[in-house]
């Protein structure tokens, strides 16, 4: 369909030619192909040392081998379980604390400096301590990922609740909403857009926390696979592990997108 035409009839345009989907997609794929070809070529001709940089074809074959042999599944499952647990726990606590602090002025005032301090902490450094506390199993990874997820969700929920339209709130109060009903009918739905935007970020962080935790010390999971590969200077294995991780994050993000579209269908433009 060309610009300004729809169902055979010309429609008004703003004068700027719209970017067609297929055009953008072609460029996106083109970019990928050129990048991969350049990498492959540089590795084949020795411009990039494959020992340090590996090569796309080798990484791809490695991933295929992992998937076909079934080697990667238990590791992937472990990482996903950790990330999911961290995501759920972090989100529940984040929304809960965000709600409490946004609604009770005293709590917000008292805890404000502590939350700032905790958030300023480089959480990844806590990894070894969590392993000390919770052991080499799944719990220490979940704990690390929770510390990452919690703050993102917390800050967004807090902000979302604070930004509730005062007229909508007062109207519900005049209709005799109880404090609990205000929460359910006004505050939470209003904060939903903020909470969702935090979910996109926090799902990534949940996985990062899990993988980093595994990397620091474990016997299973993608982080473990990457650490093992690194231990024998297998750059191909490192890249393959990283790419798999981001592919999984992307898939989950798509799921959240769909859920978001459904739950926020009341918004103009959705």
């Amino acid at each position, binding site marked *: 369909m060309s610009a300004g035409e729809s169902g055979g009839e010309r429609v008004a345009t703003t004068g700027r030619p719209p970017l067609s989907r297929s055009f953008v997609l072609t460029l996106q794929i083109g970019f990928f192909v050129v990048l991969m070809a350049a990498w492959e070529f540089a590795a084949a001709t020795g411009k990039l040392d494959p020992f340090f940089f590996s090569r796309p074809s080798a990484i791809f074959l490695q991933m295929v081998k992992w998937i076909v042999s079934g080697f990667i599944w238990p590791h992937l499952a472990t990482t996903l379980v950790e990330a999911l647990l961290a995501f759920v726990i972090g989100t529940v606590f984040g929304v809960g604390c965000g709600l409490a602090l946004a609604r009770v002025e005293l709590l917000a005032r008292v805890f404000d400096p502590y939350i700032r301090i905790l958030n300023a902490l480089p959480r990844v450094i806590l990894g070894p301590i969590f392993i000390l506390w919770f052991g080499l199993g799944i719990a220490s990874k979940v704990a690390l990922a929770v510390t990452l997820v919690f703050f993102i969700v917390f800050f967004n929920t807090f902000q979302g609740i604070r930004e509730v339209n005062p007229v909508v709130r007062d109207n519900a109060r*005049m209709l005799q909403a109880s404090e609990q009903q205000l929460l359910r009918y006004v505050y939470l739905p209003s904060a939903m857009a903020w909470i969702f935007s935090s979910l996109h970020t926090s799902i990534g962080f949940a996985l990062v926390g899990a993988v980093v935790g595994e990397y620091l010390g474990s016997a299973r999971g993608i982080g473990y696979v990457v650490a093992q590969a690194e231990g024998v200077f297998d750059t191909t294995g490192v890249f393959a592990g990283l790419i798999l991780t981001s592919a999984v994050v992307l898939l989950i993000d798509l799921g959240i997108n769909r859920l978001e579209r459904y739950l926020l269908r009341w918004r103009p433009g959705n």
Partner: protein
Amino acid sequence: MSTPAVAFEGVTVRFPTPAGGVQTVLRDISLEIADGTFVAIVGPSGCGKSTLLNVAAGLLMPPEGCARVFGEPVQGINRYATYLFQQDALLPWRTVLDNVRLGLVFRNVPAREATARAIRFIERVGLKGFEDRFPHQLSGGMRKRVAVAQSWIVDPRILLMDEPFGALDVQTRQIMENELLGLWQESRQTVLFITHDLEEAIALADRVVVISAGPAARIKGDYEVTLPRPRDVAEIRLNPEFMQLYKRIWSDLRDEVRQSYAAGNR
């Protein structure tokens, strides 16, 4: 005389200014509103009319004086009243049906009964077939109808209205005013209607109260409107009595509007 539906007793309201001082918005307002009357409060913009309404609603506690509803001092939200705001106050994430039955749900009316009553009321305000729409899918006038249904369905004894049709175009506004009068004609609750439009005030109300320009606004005038009911807001404007009344009240209001204008409001 029986207990007034709403009584303001020496209400003074002050707000802190951004510069750190204190500004008196309303000074010593005393006003009684009889049960079942439609009272319009007019004044130049920025004079504190909405503040007065918020005191009656219980959304604002005055530092001096108090508001009473049916003799009881207002403490916390006024349980006898609902509020029709100028801005959109519907829950944007709920459908028309959900929005209309909201007050019933909050009052723990059984879901089935609440839905049945909401459907009837939606039909009454001419929105049959739009039950499943979200507010953003409706026009401004339709959203206002939903808001009217939402505040009316709980059968409040007092309706507080803060320039509810201020944001609508003239034609839609007249239609809405007539529909409002139609609904009121049936139930005859007490209505406290804030507006800066004197014509709207006279066309709708039994009584028009003029508030002076702020700061420290007071009551400037109080007029009985004896025009016959039922009224049509477009036709009533041509009534000679309407025009006479308009002239009388306008002479009061004019000075206030000028003063307000000189002080930099609008």
